[in-house]
């Protein structure tokens, strides 16, 4: 259940853009090498067509597909699938190393709700995370869509879900050097836009959450609401501003950070499965 920290180190501290992906038809684990070759050829062809990825940069793109066996929730989940694009600049010697330029991985952590109901020949990996140039994401995404008849959609995170995340993560056990629990609000529709950053000392945020949460290991919507109301009330006491009327756009803790545009950063390997489980749930909601 716990992912090997070495293999998953590259997942941490990167900003991942989130997508939901519908089940893929005809995907076969045994053919990863073939897929890598085909995807590589597709990318080269698209570049040749003049849809250059980066102006003035001549790069040979190498594609690698691999399975991340450790990233899954239960046996019902498919193992995660990693796509990595590396560049090898032209004219360099054989000894030059490939430089990774783009990562994308599909995963499902306790995505039983989806995989239970899916017909044969379909592979469920509803959550897709990418890091790197948007143009590469578009290329990889369109190849997968064409090849496996699936559909990618950007996964936005609502203020409701962001408040779940911040409540959950604020309650996690802390290292000594934990960073603040920060909520970022944006006030729309004003003549001059206003952003409000509300950062709470992690010990104090956890202390608050600990008195709100009634059953360890279990979180209810009511508890999240109470936690948020406490933070709003403390803020209102000082500034007379109703933060609840502002738009929560980003939350950030020592565990992870998440932005409403569907961008997350995971900072702690220990909590990787928990975060992925939550995101898998969001992805599945969007698909259904």
């Amino acid at each position: 259940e716990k992912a090997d920290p070495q293999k998953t180190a590259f997942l941490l501290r990167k900003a991942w853009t989130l997508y939901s992906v519908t089940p893929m038809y005809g995907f076969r684990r045994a053919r990863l090498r073939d897929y890598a070759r085909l995807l590589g050829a597709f990318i080269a062809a698209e570049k040749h067509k003049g849809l250059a990825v980066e102006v003035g940069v001549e790069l040979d793109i190498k594609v690698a597909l691999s399975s991340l066996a450790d990233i899954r929730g239960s046996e019902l989940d498919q193992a995660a699938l990693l796509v990595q694009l590396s560049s090898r600049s032209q004219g360099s010697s054989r000894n030059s190393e490939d430089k990774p330029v783009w990562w994308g991985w599909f995963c499902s952590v306790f995505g039983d709700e989806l995989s239970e109901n899916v017909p044969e020949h379909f592979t469920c990996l509803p959550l897709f995370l990418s890091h790197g140039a948007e143009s590469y994401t578009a290329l990889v995404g369109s190849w997968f869509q064409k090849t496996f008849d699936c559909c990618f959609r950007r996964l936005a995170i609502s203020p409701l879900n962001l408040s779940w995340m911040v409540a959950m993560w604020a309650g996690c056990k802390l290292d000594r050097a934990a960073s603040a629990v920060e909520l970022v609000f944006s006030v729309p529709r004003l003549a001059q836009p206003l952003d409000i950053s509300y950062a709470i000392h992690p010990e104090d945020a956890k202390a608050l959450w600990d008195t709100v949460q009634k059953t360890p290991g279990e979180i209810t919507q009511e508890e999240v609401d109470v936690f948020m109301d406490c933070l709003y009330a403390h803020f209102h006491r000082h500034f007379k501003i109703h933060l609840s009327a502002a738009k929560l756009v980003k939350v950030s803790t020592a565990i992870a950070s998440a932005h409403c545009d569907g961008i997350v950063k995971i900072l702690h390997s220990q909590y990787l499965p928990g975060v992925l489980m939550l995101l898998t749930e969001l992805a599945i909601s969007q698909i259904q």
Partner: protein
Amino acid sequence: MDETVAEYIRRTVLKIPRDEIKMMLQKWGFLSEAQLQTLNFHQIKDNISQEVVQLCEENSADIKQAAVLDIIYNHIYQNKRMWSVYQMKRSGEELEYFDITDFKKKFKRRLRSALKNVTITFKEYEDNAIWIRVAWGTPHKKPNQYKPSYVVYHSQTPYVFISSSVLKSTLPLLCQALIVASNYHDIRDMELRSHSLNSLKDIVFKRYSQNFQTCTPKPLQGGNVEPEIADIRIVEENRSEKERIHRLNQEVFGSGPQPKLEFAQYRLETMFKSDPKMDVLDKKEPFRCLVKFSSPHLLESLKFLAPAGMADAPLSPLLTCIPHKARNYFKIREKKGLYPESFVSP
């Protein structure tokens, strides 16, 4: 001409938008009008700056002249820098006669006695502002011209506006030299920062429209309130509430434009108070928070919070006190005693 000076002039010219290069060189006055005529301002900036460097070579420019060009650039593009306001204090009430030559001499002497390698440049502007540029070196290295500090001092006032070098250790030296040169005995950070130098001046020189008390409610005016609706079948909800908010806003903010600040930061060390029924946190220690408001024009955006329904009117004094307390960094602690609800800002 020194290689480093040539490179510095080249890079300074490159920063200037192409349409403004001629004007800035004219302000600089180091190149003659005849020399300026020879420049082709319609080519790419790289080439223009090379040509400027060649002309400077002809005139044997040194770092002192190059530094003046840099001040001119930064005076025009002052809003690219972050400025902090400091206030100097005198021991007595004596009004000293300000002698600019004496000031410059003392300033240079104080800095040079502490640090041999410094480049110090002064430029006076019409509004009684003295601009000072200091490039810092070490006992063994020539001054780094790319990380200077800038000071704007209005000699008729105790205020200095400092755009610090990224070399943090230089700030104490700079402050020392300022008080020695201007015959003050102390200087304090007012915790007031912004990119808009003029707005900072507006705040400390009290040049913005301040609170005014209205004895009688004013008739509706200004952009805050919707225009009269002609159709009598349409009734405006909460009209009196809207008027009340508008009036309170006027009282707090005045009717003129607000000084331009980009952020306000509050370090809260107050207690967390809650409804006992909620059975939540009841600690005896402060609930530590850091709140930061950011906006391209903070005070204007705060002004519209209450009319937008996002805030109560009147707005919290923690926010409305910013211009007249002349600060935008605050540390808020609980006030002890009879009124635990009020806050004190040291």
